[in-house]
C-alpha cells in the first residue's frame, strides 16, 4: 500500500479508544475511486464509529485517514465536508420543519459562511440543481411539501441522500440507508445507489445481505473493532469466520 494517492480514501492503523475500550482497533481500509464499498458486521463491531471517525464526528486516538491524499483526522467536520465527504446518519436526519425544497437547498454548496448565508440568493442554478436532485431521489412530487417531517420514513432516507447529492461529494458514506424501507423502496434505492456510484465513491453500512449483494463492489467485515476480512460478496459470505461471527453472535 505504498501510494495513497491511488485511493480516494486510505485508512491506516486507525484506533479510537473510549476509556480503554477500543471501538476501532488498528483498522486499515482502502477505497478506490468510483467504488461502492459495503461494511458489514455484527452490532458493536465499530461500523458507525468508523464512519464517525472519517467524517470527524469522533476524533481518532491514533492512526491516519487520508482522503485524496489529504489528512482528515485533524480537520473540523465542516472542513471535511467541504473537501468532498458526505455522510448520512443511521436515523434519517433531515430538517423536519423546513420544506423538502428548503432541505435540499440548504445543502447547496454555496453560501456556507455567515456572510454567504446573509447574501445568498436563490438563483436559477440553485433551483435547477434542486429539481435535478429531487428527480434523482424520487421526490419530485413532494418537492413543495411544507414540512419535510410529513414524508414517509423511506422518503426521509431518500431526502437525506438527496441532501448529500446536492453537495456533489466525491465520497459518500451511508449508514443503513434502507432501514425501515419497503421491498419496493429497497429496490429503488439499490438502483439509485448504483447510479450514484458511477461517478463517485460510496461507503455503505448495511445489514440486509440481499441488498448488499445487489450493490456491493467489495465488502469489508468488521468485528470487535478490527477488520475480519475483505473481498467480493460471495467470497465473504462463504467464509467460515464470517459465518461464525454472525451465528455466534
Amino acid at each position, binding site marked *: 500500500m505504498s501510494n495513497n494517492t491511488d485511493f480516494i480514501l486510505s485508512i491506516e492503523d486507525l484506533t479510537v479508544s473510549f476509556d480503554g475500550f477500543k471501538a476501532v482497533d488498528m483498522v486499515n481500509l482502502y477505497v478506490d475511486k468510483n467504488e461502492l464499498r459495503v461494511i458489514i458486521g455484527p452490532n458493536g463491531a465499530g461500523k458507525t464509529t468508523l464512519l464517525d471517525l472519517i467524517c470527524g464526528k469522533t476524533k481518532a486516538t491514533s492512526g491516519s485517514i487520508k482522503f485524496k491524499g489529504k489528512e482528515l483526522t485533524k480537520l*473540523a467536520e*465542516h472542513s471535511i465536508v467541504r473537501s468532498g465527504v458526505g455522510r448520512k446518519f443511521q436515523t434519517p*436526519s433531515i430538517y*423536519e*420543519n423546513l*420544506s423538502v425544497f428548503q432541505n435540499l437547498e440548504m445543502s447547496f454548496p454555496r453560501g456556507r459562511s455567515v456572510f454567504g448565508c446573509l447574501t445568498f440568493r436563490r438563483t436559477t442554478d440553485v*433551483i435547477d440543481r434542486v429539481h435535478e436532485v429531487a428527480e434523482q431521489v424520487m421526490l419530485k412530487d413532494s418537492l*413543495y411539501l*411544507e414540512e419535510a417531517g410529513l414524508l414517509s420514513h423511506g422518503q426521509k432516507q431518500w431526502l*437525506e441522500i438527496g441532501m448529500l447529492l446536492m453537495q456533489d461529494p466525491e465520497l459518500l458514506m451511508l449508514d443503513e440507508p434502507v432501514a425501515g424501507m419497503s421491498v419496493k423502496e429497497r429496490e429503488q434505492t439499490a438502483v439509485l445507489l448504483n447510479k450514484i456510484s458511477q461517478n463517485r465513491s460510496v461507503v455503505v453500512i448495511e445489514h440486509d445481505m440481499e441488498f448488499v449483494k445487489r450493490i456491493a463492489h467489495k465488502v469489508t467485515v468488521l468485528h470487535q473493532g478490527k477488520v475480519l476480512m475483505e473481498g467480493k460478496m460471495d467470497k465473504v459470505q462463504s467464509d467460515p469466520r464470517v459465518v461464525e461471527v454472525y451465528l455466534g453472535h
Partner: protein
Amino acid sequence: MMKAMYQNMLGGRSGMIGLLILAAIIFLVLPLGLDLFRLNLVGKYLTYAFVAVSLVLLWGYGGILSLGQGIFFGLGGYCMAMFLKLEASDPESTKIQTTPGIPDFMDWNQLTALPWFWEPFHSLTFTLIAILAVPTLFAFIIGYAMFKRRVGGVYFAIITQVIALILTILIVGQQGYTGGVNGITDLKTLMGWDIRTDSAKYILYFINGALLIAVILVSRVILGSKFGMLMLAMRDKEERVRFSGYDVADFKIFVFCLAAMISAIGGAMFTLQVGFMSPTFVGIVPSIEMVIFAAVGGRMSLIGAVYGALLVNYGKTVFSESYPELWLFLMGGLFIAVVMFFPNGLAGIYDKYEKKLFTRKPRKGSASAMSSRTLSDPQPGPVRDAASPPAKGMGISNQPVN
C-alpha cells in the same frame, strides 16, 4: 427585485400589517393617548424590548438561551453614561471637588485623575462606536470560547448567568471607576442638549421607537435570508447542518454578537431616557426577566417580543403599585404558565385565534404563498420562506449539551 425586497423586509402582507400596527401604536396611539410621564415609562419599557427582540433571534431562532443579556444592555448603557457623565463633569460644575473635572464618584473614591479607559469617552463618535462595539466584542469573546467548544444549552445559560454575576460584582466593587452600587447618575446633557426637558423626552422617545422598528426590520431581513433558515435547521438538527459543510459555531457566534449589539442599543437608549445607569440592570435578575418578556410575547415573534416587554412591564408597574404582594406571585405564575401552556406566548395565541377566524384564508404570508404556488417554481431571489416558520417544534430538546 423590489417585490422581493418588500417581501423580505416586511415578511409579506401579514408581517407588514403587524409592523404597521406596532409602528402606529408606538408613534401615534401612545404619544397621543398618554401624558409625558406615562410616555416616558413606555419609552423605558421599549428599551427592554430591544433585549426581548434580541432574545427572539438568539433563543427563539437560534435555540441558544442566554441568561446574561443584561451584560450587553448594561455595557451599552454604561458606555452612553460614561460619555454623559464626562460632559456633566466639566471643571466648572465640579469645582467643589478635590480634583475638579473628573466625575464626582471618582473624587469621592480618592481618584485624582481620569482612568485611561474613560478618556476616549470624551468623544461622542467614539462613544457611539463603543456602544455597539464593546458589547459585540465581549459577546464575540464569550461566544468564540463557548461555541467553538460546543458548549451549549443549559451550560451556556448557566455560564452566561455567572458572567453577568461577575460583571455585577466587578462594577459594584470597583466603585472608583464605575460608580459602584449607585451607578453613574446625574446625567444632564448630550452635546449641550438638555436631555431632561419635556421636548427632549419626546424626541428621545421617537428616536427610540424608530431604532426599535429599524432593528426589527434588520432582524427580519436576516431571518428572511438563508441565515434564518439555517438557524431553524441548526436548532432542529445541528449535526446535519455541521455535516452539510457549515461551521455551526460561526453562526452561533454571529447571532450571539448580533443579539448583544441589539441589547446594547436598548441599554444606551435606556441611559438617555432614564438619566442614569446602575448595576441593577446588569445582573442575573434583570437578565432573566428579559427572557420572560420574550417568552410572553412569543419567542418566535419579533413583534410579539415588543408587546411582551410592554405588557409585562406595564403589569409590573400597575401591580406593584396596587397589589405589591401579588406581583411576584403573578410574575412567577407567568413564567410557569408560559413555559407549560403557551410556549409560543402571545404570538402563539394570536396565531391560533387568527387561524380559527380565517380558516379559509391561508395563514401567514410567506409559508402559504409557498403552498399556493405548489406547482410552479419558487421565484429567484433571497430565501424568505423561513421568515415565518411553522410554529411547531418549539421544544429545545434537540440541544446537544456538549
